[in-house]
């Protein structure tokens, strides 16, 4: 309790209660700004109860009289306000949504040739798809599409396992991909020769005699990678004759021995890679923009 001597302005009444002989409590009125603010909050809450969902009654609750106008089955209808009707309204008619939808519809109707040839639509697709890519693709393929070996292929080069045309890319995004190479138990010298031959396909400087011996072992690889090692985009089989490696990082390997060891690892263990399907998650227009984005990212074919 404050010392009454400090309160020299005017005498304040006490509550009348006395404790321990001389302990009293001042009965100061609340500051009027505080009191009026308090009354205002009460008035506000009454207005709120009337306008918005508020009071529980039995198994239901008061819906409030505020409304939101939304489009339903082609007609504009008034619905009671709640966070969900407001969201519908915002998705339908907020200025940014309207502006965006105009472009989305335009892109949705256009063919890939038309989009790729139209700088305006490309600019829109690029900026929209950048967001989708960041959210759905970048976790695996990297924020710039640079990939992450051995699991996730590079999208930023012009080497495509499953084909680099827009149709191929769209199919990849829609349905996902299952990359599968069986394991082959090749060991010792035979493996060494096979690895040497595979390296020779992409112009690596290797022992020609060993490569020649390895060619026999390559017969089991031809079914998918082709007689000349050109790969097969129908099966997702890699082209072994270019210098782009989509599972192991050959250019980074220090020595020839290291390169052969890496190839041996792939042959012995096989590959199981999976990309999820996005057709049920993204809208067709969104996949379209994403396709264009990835196509552009990697210098698509």
């Amino acid at each position: 309790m404050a010392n009454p001597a400090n309160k020299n302005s005017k005498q304040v009444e006490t509550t009348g209660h006395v404790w321990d002989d001389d302990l009293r409590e001042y009965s100061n009125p609340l500051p009027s700004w505080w009191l009026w603010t308090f009354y205002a909050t009460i008035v506000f809450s009454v207005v709120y109860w009337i306008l918005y969902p508020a009071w529980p009654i039995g198994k239901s609750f008061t819906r409030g009289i505020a409304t939101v106008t939304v489009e339903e089955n082609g007609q504009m209808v008034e619905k009671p306000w709640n966070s969900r009707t407001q969201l519908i309204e915002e998705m339908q008619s907020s200025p940014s949504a309207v502006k965006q939808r105009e472009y989305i519809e335009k892109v949705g109707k256009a063919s890939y040739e038309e989009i790729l040839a139209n700088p305006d639509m490309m600019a829109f697709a690029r900026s929209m798809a950048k967001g989708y890519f960041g959210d759905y693709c970048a976790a695996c393929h990297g924020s710039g599409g640079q990939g992450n070996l051995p699991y996730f292929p590079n999208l930023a080069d012009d080497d495509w396992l499953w084909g680099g045309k827009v149709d191929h890319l769209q199919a990849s995004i829609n349905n996902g991909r299952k990359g599968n190479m069986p394991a082959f138990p090749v060991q010792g010298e035979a493996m060494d020769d096979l690895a040497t031959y595979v390296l020779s396909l992409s112009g690596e400087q290797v022992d020609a005699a060993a490569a020649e011996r390895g060619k026999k072992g390559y017969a089991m690889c031809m079914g998918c990678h082709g007689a000349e090692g050109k790969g097969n985009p129908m099966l997702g089989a890699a082209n072994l004759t270019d210098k782009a490696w989509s599972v192991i990082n050959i250019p980074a390997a220090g020595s020839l021995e290291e390169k052969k060891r890496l190839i041996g690892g792939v042959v012995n263990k096989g590959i199981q890679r999976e990309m999820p399907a996005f057709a049920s998650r993204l809208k067709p227009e969104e996949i379209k923009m994403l396709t264009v984005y990835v196509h552009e990212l990697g210098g698509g074919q």
Partner: protein
Amino acid sequence: MKHESIEINAGLLIILTLVVVSIGGLVEIVPLFHIKDTVEEVKGVRPYTPLEQRGRDLYIREGCYACHSQMIRPFRDEMLRYGHYSLAAESKYDHPFQWASKRTGPDIARLGGKYSDEWHTQHLIRPQNVVPESIMPPYPWLLKNELAYGDIENRMKALKMTGVPYSLSEDEYQANVAEHGKEMADKLHIPNARATLEAEANGRNLDGDKSRITEMDAMVAYLQALGTMVDFKQYEQGYFANFR
């Protein structure tokens, strides 16, 4: 009773304070048990399979909820980034629900199916392996620890007491068959729990090692189930607005 007698009796003051506070609490809480109009009627929401349920326990053990929410709010920007807003019905079998409130990492209410199993495994071992910019800590022990599932039946029975429709009797089993189909009903049958869990873990082989069932198997199974149960293409947007 005079005000003074309350003020000078500490015991009486405590009791009356409790009465007043509990009235406030009851007025706020009790109606929530009775209001049926806010839980959406949707098809597809089911209890977690035994493997997913164990994954969910690990999710709680590791404190994932401290950085990840599982609650997409009904805002335009959240719809655009994360997908359809979360429904009350989608967490009706979550005890406790994992809505959380802080997003140090992204919301993961609709994580299921977004990335591959392999990605999740690599990401949990060391997030920076796949997302260099990530600040998430690594959870490598998930792959090392064998999953403890000896008490899975008891865990499911406990959840059953809170209202999660795992089945014990033939009638309950048949009800699940009608609701979720035979394949899923088998997984939700408590007497099958252990065999179901082993079959699911080995069938999907999420951690890439068939010889053992690790915590990674369970965690990834749970993460891949998140937000996938309701098929939103079946419903008009206006439908869900009727429940608010």
